[in-house]
């Protein structure tokens, strides 16, 4: 059974269809990046999954439990931080944990509270008021609150917002540990493509409330596509030759061609050289950023 299944989810907000027939599912123990431009519906989707807002149409199953029919049973399997780790700043870290422990369906023992404090490494500051915590510490406490009841799905909306590089690194470490050791499935929404690339196993891209693509971030080089950057002259001749391989963009002094296979790269070089084009630089990049932008580009062209 998949831990989270979203089926044909739709939601209209202020007359605009923010989520439009969105469907996806998550496999157990993997970390998913949830990507999309601003206003694509990422946060709205997360709020729908955790039942902060009502759906107009569609179904959400958490560990097989229908959120519409068995809200409480479904929610006991999920933990989330929506936007900020909103905590009671006038209470101590421990009081916050005890507060949310009292809301769990299954009793949470004192040892479990100590275990999560230990996991997020807040032992020395746990009895201090949350208002004295740094943003990174609040984020860690937020994660502790979210995993306290041992959920099988953890949803984090922009978890690295406001964190310094060290804080990001620490967070990455905790999240990986959760996925690998405890088999927790994570859905991490982020603007930071590099962050997603480093942390996640798979990525789901949404735009205008619809899933545009889902892909593996750990696939081998031969399966992936590349973005090729070429600096050559004369530019008109170079452009003509490159155009036969796909849509060519001019980026300052460079030509950019998206979605090229690894095998295609020598062919591009050969085509340019045969036509006596002077080749100054050729560089190819394989990465989420390239794939992400090319996906959004493709989607724009299709519309």
């Amino acid at each position, binding site marked *: 059974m998949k831990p989270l299944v979203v089926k044909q989810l739709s939601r209209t907000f202020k007359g605009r269809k923010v989520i439009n027939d969105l469907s996806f599912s998550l496999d157990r123990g993997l970390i998913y990046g949830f990507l999309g431009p601003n206003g694509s519906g990422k946060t709205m989707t997360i709020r729908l999954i955790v039942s902060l807002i009502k759906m107009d149409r569609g179904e959400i199953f958490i560990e097989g439990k229908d959120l519409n029919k068995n*809200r*409480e049973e479904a929610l006991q399997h999920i933990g989330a931080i929506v*936007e900020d780790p909103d905590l*009671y700043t*006038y209470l101590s870290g421990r*009081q916050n944990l005890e507060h*949310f422990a009292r809301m769990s369906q299954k009793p949470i023992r004192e040892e479990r509270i100590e275990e999560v404090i230990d996991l997020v490494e807040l032992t020395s500051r746990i009895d201090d008021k949350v208002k004295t915590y740094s943003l990174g510490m609040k984020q860690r406490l937020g994660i502790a609150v979210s995993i306290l009841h041992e959920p099988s799905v953890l949803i984090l909306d922009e978890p690295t917002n406001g964190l310094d590089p060290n804080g990001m690194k620490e967070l990455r470490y905790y999240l990986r540990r959760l996925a690998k050791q405890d088999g927790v499935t994570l859905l991490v929404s982020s603007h930071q493509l590099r962050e997603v690339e480093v942390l996640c196993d798979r990525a789901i891209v949404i735009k205008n409330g619809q899933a545009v693509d889902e892909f593996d971030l750990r696939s081998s080089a031969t399966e992936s596509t590349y973005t090729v950057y070429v600096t050559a002259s004369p530019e008109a001749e170079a452009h003509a030759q490159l155009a036969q391989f796909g849509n060519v963009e001019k980026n300052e002094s460079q030509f950019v061609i998206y979605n090229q296979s690894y095998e295609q790269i020598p062919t591009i070089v050969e085509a340019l050289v045969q036509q006596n084009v002077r080749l100054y630089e050729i560089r190819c990049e394989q990465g989420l950023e390239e794939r992400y932008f090319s996906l959004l580009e493709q989607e724009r062209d299709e519309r």
Partner: protein
Amino acid sequence: MKGLVINETLKAWHGRRIGLAMIMMSILILFIFIVAIAIDQSFGLLLTTEEFVTIGSVLHIFIMLYSFVLVTGAISGEASTGTIKQLLIKPVSRHRILLSKWLTNLVISFLLYCFVLALLFAFGLFFPHVVPLSSTFFYLVETALYTTPSLIFYVALATLLAVITKNTAVTIVLTILPYFFADLFVLLAAEYDWASWIVFAHIDVFNNYNPVSLAPPPFPSMWASIGFLLIHIALMLAIAHIIYKRQDVL
């Protein structure tokens, strides 16, 4: 439910500073006591325990205002700080969450009122008494009971407004307005037959049905009046619960 009530008590104590409110009330009572002693000695009025307690019972206004702060802080306060999100994604029904909020803060407000009355009684013992102390004590118990419908009514009103507006300041202002001006409205409408059907005409149960009261009661029976109030309370809370359950948290 027990866990939710503990949570709300904890948040009220630390977040809305009940301890500080108790200290402030104690200081106010002490101030009234000192003024009463000073007047007593300067003018030779010879205040009695029952008179001191009667004067001090005006403090119920502060309790009422503080109850608005407690309820709105628990409902709209959590909406403005964002903690409501973490609360509502937990596997607990929204009904139970809202119920725990207004019920806990209602009980806290009532206990706070009892604390004030008890303190008044204790300070009142420094004055001579002409009626037995037990009678004064029962008068205080009676005062607390008569004030309860009014307290419940305003807590229900604050709950409804806090759920609708999700704004602490707006809720407090909108709740205070009828608290201070409803009597004036009722007075202006008194010449009409329908005036007795204005819910605010029923709130001051103690004065409405006090045998020495000059104004006629809105209904012939006190229990009918309380029943009428309860219908409004139930209606306000039912609407608040329906809205809270369906409300989107953006």
